[in-house]
């Protein structure tokens, strides 16, 4: 059974349609990537799953139950974590306070404490900067904090929106290393990325979004040429993407 099942999802901003009957399934333990140009609707799709924007039609089911009507905080409590584009760390709070907020939904205090220690081992720079105001962190450090904060909620499904955006290559390597480790631990990942090469290499399956519509990218070696044509169509507007 799919952990996440999006069916014919329609989202509009006022009268402007952002998603046109988008359907997507993510199985437990999978890492699924969604690539596509700016304005394709990728962020809107993640926002709808996280409960930030309302669906005009269609459904989103998580672990077999419809998420319709659930508040963002209720969705986090059900096990879906979001690392948003632009990090959205709380700049006026310290690194420690940001991490503490990540544990808001945890009830297993002892385990949460152990997870915090493990997270600080995974991102040692956060241990060094523990009492620093988060707004003083570099972009790479803020991204590590945003991912660490989401992980501390112990999500079953982690949504990541452009985690490599604006980061130095070394930090991008670290981010994907951590994501690989999470996938190895069985965390299901839905990754939205503009870095097509890194995203498709990381994911078990990939989809292309363009103009608010979604379609799978061919997975087989034979399909590589077709995938390339689809991507070129989406990014360059040469008409290959449907």
């Amino acid at each position, binding site marked *: 059974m799919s952990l996440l099942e999006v069916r014919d999802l329609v989202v509009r901003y006022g009268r402007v349609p952002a998603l046109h009957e988008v359907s997507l399934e993510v199985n437990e333990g999978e890492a699924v990537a969604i690539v596509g140009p700016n304005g394709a609707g990728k962020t809107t799709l993640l926002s709808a799953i996280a409960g930030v924007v309302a669906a005009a039609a269609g459904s989103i089911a998580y672990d077999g139950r419809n998420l319709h009507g659930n*508040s963002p905080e209720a969705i986090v409590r059900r096990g879906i974590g*979001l690392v948003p584009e632009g990090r959205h760390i*709380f700049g006026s709070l310290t690194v420690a306070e940001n991490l503490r907020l990540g544990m*808001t939904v945890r009830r297993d205090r002892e385990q949460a404490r152990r997870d915090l220690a493990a997270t600080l081992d995974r991102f040692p720079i956060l241990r060094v900067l523990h009492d620093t105001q988060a707004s003083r962190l570099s972009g790479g450090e803020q991204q590590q904090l945003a991912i660490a904060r989401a992980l501390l909620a112990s999500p079953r499904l982690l949504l990541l929106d452009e985690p490599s955006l604006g980061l130095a290559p070394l930090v991008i390597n670290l981010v994907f290393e951590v994501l690989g480790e999470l996938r190895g631990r069985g965390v299901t990942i839905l990754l939205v990325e503009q870095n097509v090469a890194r995203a498709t290499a990381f994911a078990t399956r990939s989809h292309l979004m363009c103009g608010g519509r979604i379609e799978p990218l061919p997975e087989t070696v034979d399909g590589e040429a077709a995938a390339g044509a689809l991507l070129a169509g989406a990014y360059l507007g040469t008409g290959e993407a449907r």
Partner: protein
Amino acid sequence: MIVATLHSIVQDGVDALSLGSTYALYALGIALVFSVMRLINFAHGELITAGAMTMFLLVGVPFVALLGIVLVVVVALALLTERVAFRPVRDASPATLLVTSFAVSYLLQSLAVVIFGSTPRTVDIAGGLTGSFTVGGIEIGKLDALTIGLTAALLVGLALFLARTSIGVQMRAAAEDFQMARLVGVRANRVIAISFALSGLLAAIAAFLLLVQTASVTPTMGITPVLIAFIATVIGGMGSLQGAVLGGMLIGIATVVLQVALPVELRPYRDAFVFAVVLGVLVLRPGGLIVARSTITRI
């Protein structure tokens, strides 16, 4: 001569600090709700009125019990307005929120007129506080000392609450980026309700101080405090709690300084000069003295 001038300056300084503290208390009540909900709650004035009227009704009840009851009544009323009037329109436009707050304010004012009538009622709830004491030749009003002490204690308590407790950290996160706070699991209803409860607590204390000061209760007694609070939060920087305190202090201190410094014939126009100072601050710093972190909407 020099000693007399020095005494006079210290005396005026105490007055300025006292008035500034009172205004900071008013402003903090407005700012607490605005920081998490982006609502300018003009009904905060009616919470002050409700506190004063409750005290009027309970004259004769032992002082500590009276204060306790007033706190409970005002906090309960603050929570009730949040649940009944503001929660249903939480996601509406700022204009809708503003109109709702005016509606709640007028409704509560009208209710007060129906229950108490519009005639001012006099009441002496703490006559012992109207005197003064002398320290080093400086006469300090007991009420001034209480106002400054109480405000300082409340500010320290609030700062500790926001810094040290889990819900305090959640409130600070929600004030900075409400949507992201919800996305890490902060319960919107809980954080907003606590903000209203705290603003109710501040309104109850402001009602007590105002009533001791004026010894009079009217259904419209909350209007002036809420206007001062609104102006203080604007010049302090909307959404910033430190800004609200700073704005309240600035207006209070400017009021007392102008009262002392202006020539006698200009003193009736003191408030016009105070608002000129306010205008000057806004021209120099349109975002207020302390600009709160803005919320980025695209998530």
